[in-house]
């Protein structure tokens, strides 16, 4: 199995390199004039040309990508203009491998940018995943075991209703009414554990994570309900009952275990995607995570940051897929030994 995991990791790395190349190509295939967007208000043709050269956008795409790839492997010094590096060594920024580049827009290496912004996305994703898994699975089971009852219909209907609202709307509703108008909660600001302790970190994550969790809640309720129902219809559940097990053991030990497999897959992929940044939630709550960085850097056509984020988000997804596959083996012995 570990050989399998290693093989997956290698494939994942190749995939990510290809992903970065595609990002480079797409970036320059766009009709936008990237240098013009970066050069500010007084943008004469001459200034655009200077900016383009300073950003390295004047070089062929493959050459730019090769420089990037070299940085990932061996590290890189910035600015890319060698004349300036020699003339003004005080302005050189060394970016150690795996170097994702230097963003002139943010004035720092993409690595340190991601180091600053990723913890927020990770925090959001972790709290949100706990919230939606806890409530989603709980409500899903409740709906499944009371199938057809008012409770079941209520749960499914209500979560569907919540799902119908766009994230943007829910987030703004929380801020505009729950926080500002009714004053029920303090305005949330991201607070690292180092500053506010676990409690401060958590209380400030409450609203944005809930917003995020609500988006996923409906599908997890419905999936859990469906998987548990499917599992409860299995022959081995009848066997478990026939053994004389009480209904709790039948549901949780036998019923839920099988429903877990598809849930783990879903959770892994959703979580992996979210680690790359929850764009809307982070934008609404102004949580400076990777999602916000994605929006900002794309709007500014800041190639190094865009590529860096694509790679990080991509590796989260690749990583979670590998973890899910390994988790599968732990959950399902047929996968493990077969």
């Amino acid at each position: 199995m570990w050989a399998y995991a290693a093989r997956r990791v290698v494939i994942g790395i190749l995939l990510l390199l290809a992903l970065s190349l595609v990002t480079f190509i797409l970036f320059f295939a766009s009709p936008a004039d990237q240098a013009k967007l970066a050069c500010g208000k007084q943008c004469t043709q001459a200034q655009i040309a200077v900016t383009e050269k300073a950003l390295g956008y004047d070089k062929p795409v493959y050459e730019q990508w090769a420089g990037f790839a070299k940085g990932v492997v061996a590290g890189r010094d910035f600015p890319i203009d060698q004349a300036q590096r020699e003339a003004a060594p005080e302005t050189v920024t060394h970016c150690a491998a795996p170097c994702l580049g230097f963003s002139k827009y943010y004035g720092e290496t993409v690595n340190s940018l991601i180091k600053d912004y990723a913890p927020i996305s990770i925090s959001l994703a972790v709290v949100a995943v706990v919230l939606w898994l806890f409530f989603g699975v709980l409500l899903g089971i409740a709906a499944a075991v009371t199938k057809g009852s008012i409770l079941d219909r209520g749960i499914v209907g209500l979560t569907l209703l919540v799902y119908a609202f766009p994230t943007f709307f829910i987030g703004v509703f929380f801020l505009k009414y729950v926080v500002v108008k009714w004053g029920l909660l303090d305005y949330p600001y991201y607070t690292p554990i180092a500053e506010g302790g676990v409690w401060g970190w958590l209380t400030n994550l409450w609203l944005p994570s809930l917003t995020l969790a609500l988006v996923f809640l409906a599908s997890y309720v419905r999936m859990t309900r469906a998987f548990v129902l499917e599992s409860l219809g299995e022959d081995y559940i009848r066997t478990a009952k026939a053994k004389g097990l009480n209904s709790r053991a039948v549901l949780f030990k036998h019923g839920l275990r099988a429903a877990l497999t598809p849930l783990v897959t879903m959770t892994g992929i959703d979580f992996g995607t979210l680690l790359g940044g929850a764009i809307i939630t982070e934008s609404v709550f102004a949580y400076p995570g990777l999602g916000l960085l994605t929006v900002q850097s794309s709007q500014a056509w800041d190639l190094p940051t865009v590529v860096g984020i694509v790679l990080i988000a991509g590796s989260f997804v690749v990583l979670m897929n590998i973890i899910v596959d390994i988790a599968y083996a732990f959950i399902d012995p047929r996968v493990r030994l077969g």
Partner: protein
Amino acid sequence: MGNRLKRMVALGAAGVLGLSLAACGGDSNDNGNKGPGGNNGEPGEAGGTLTVLQHFPFESSDPNRIYYGVQLASWRRTLYRGLVAFPMSEDPAVANTPVADLATDTGTSSEGGKVWSFTLKDGVKWEDGSDITCEDVQYGASRSFANDVIIGGPTYLLNYVDVKDYPGPYKATPEQQQAFDEAVSCDGKTITFHFNKPWADFPQAIAGLMMADPYKESQDKGDGSKWTILSNGPYKIEGNKWDKNKGATLVRNDQYDPATDDPEQLRLALPDQINWEVNPSDTAGELFNDRLIQDGPKDQAAITWARLNPAQLSQISGPVEDRYLNVVSPYTDYLVLNHKTLTDPAVRKALAVSLNANGYIKATGGSTVAEPAETIINPGVSGSQDNPAFAEDNDNNGDPEAAKAILEEAGVKMPVKIKLAYQKSPTQDKAMAIIQQTWNESGFEVTLDGQGDTYYDVIAQPDKDIDVMWAGWGADWPSAMTVLPPLFDSRPNFSSTTCGNDYGCYESDEVNKLFDDAANAADVDTQVGILQEIDAKLGEDYAYIPLDNQKFNWLRGSKVTGFTTTPASSQYPEIGLIGVAK
């Protein structure tokens, strides 16, 4: 709700992002429709913590790269002192004249405005305790030339400083550096700028922009210095680094000596601390004002750069109204006539005569969001006066009969087909339809062409089939030199592929000659006179038709004192006057 909200915010942001501006002004006493009563103007006392709620991120905290008007104005009062600065007066006549800041006076010019000298005061220091030297100013000015590193800031110095092929301090050879050091030279504490042509309004330019601010060379890490701040003002940043998406906390700078300053005119610096909170969310502006309307305990000492949106204006009543300001902004909207398609002067005149500016303003939100404009030169800019071509003939409702008479007299076959382009938004759709309707009654047949994000690229094209275009502008500093030449001097604007900012592709040798005269004027008064002449000429040619001056609607928390706007603050709340009541 979502859509409307986004649109409001987008429109609000367009004012800041799309147009940009530097210090310039509007006469809030004459034109401002200030909220009645209240203690907005009352001076406050020192102490307390002010909160600044900012709904967009800055692009840099490096003085040479800053180009946002509100950032330039508010940081001039808090973090970065200049050689000279605009005073905190509500009277444009006073406000548009720089006063000495780091320098001992407002500068001495010679050689017909081609040479400017400033002498630094004694005792002015950086926050690290070191003296601000002439070399710091010299180095700061030199950074503008490194336009492959310092991207995004104003580049005026490149056109004026009398030096050739200087690549900025990072890559200059000793010879190149020598040449620059002669063009911008130091003699003890006196710095002298040698220009290749007269620059009459240079003090205004460097009071508003920070391109000639001092910069300490040992602090410069090139690209890595984009967000570091070495303050010389009354405040400094905790941690010396501005967080683009979070902001920072400003605390007292113990190296700042008010004795070297002119606090009454330039910066009262009343609060002990300023929590400067940046929230780049699309909805932040609306939420900030929601919070200010609510006036909860945490927001009572807060101001925001976000304007009230029309929906929120209806909530401004009772005690909230005491905390409200309505002022004319430095932004002017205008219509550009395409001189390549509208070659008949009678047609252009008829369009101007029948423009329903009042209807347009009503559709965009009424008298709280805009007032009719009679010239493209905003009332806050020196020398702004009604353009006779537009001010005399009608009451801004548009006069279809007069227009038809003009067309008939000129023998133009009616209806004249007109294509009107603008940047699409629900509000603009509505407002443009009003203009369309009145024009249709005036012998025209108007088609509307709502454009997307690439609007300004589209209307810059020389061969477009658009006849009339909406546009907006704000001055970089309160001189019409930053309004008329960038928009109507064909020479820097035209190339084979674009008409630049001269969207109507207007080209007049006579006007271009006058631009040269204005640029070469030895003093500001002469310059203003020439610019007024140019504006009159542009009116005669109907190069543009003024539409409206946008207005700002501001709200403050109940404990904020000294809440007003000045031309120097771009009609944003003047942070230099603001205090916090106990």
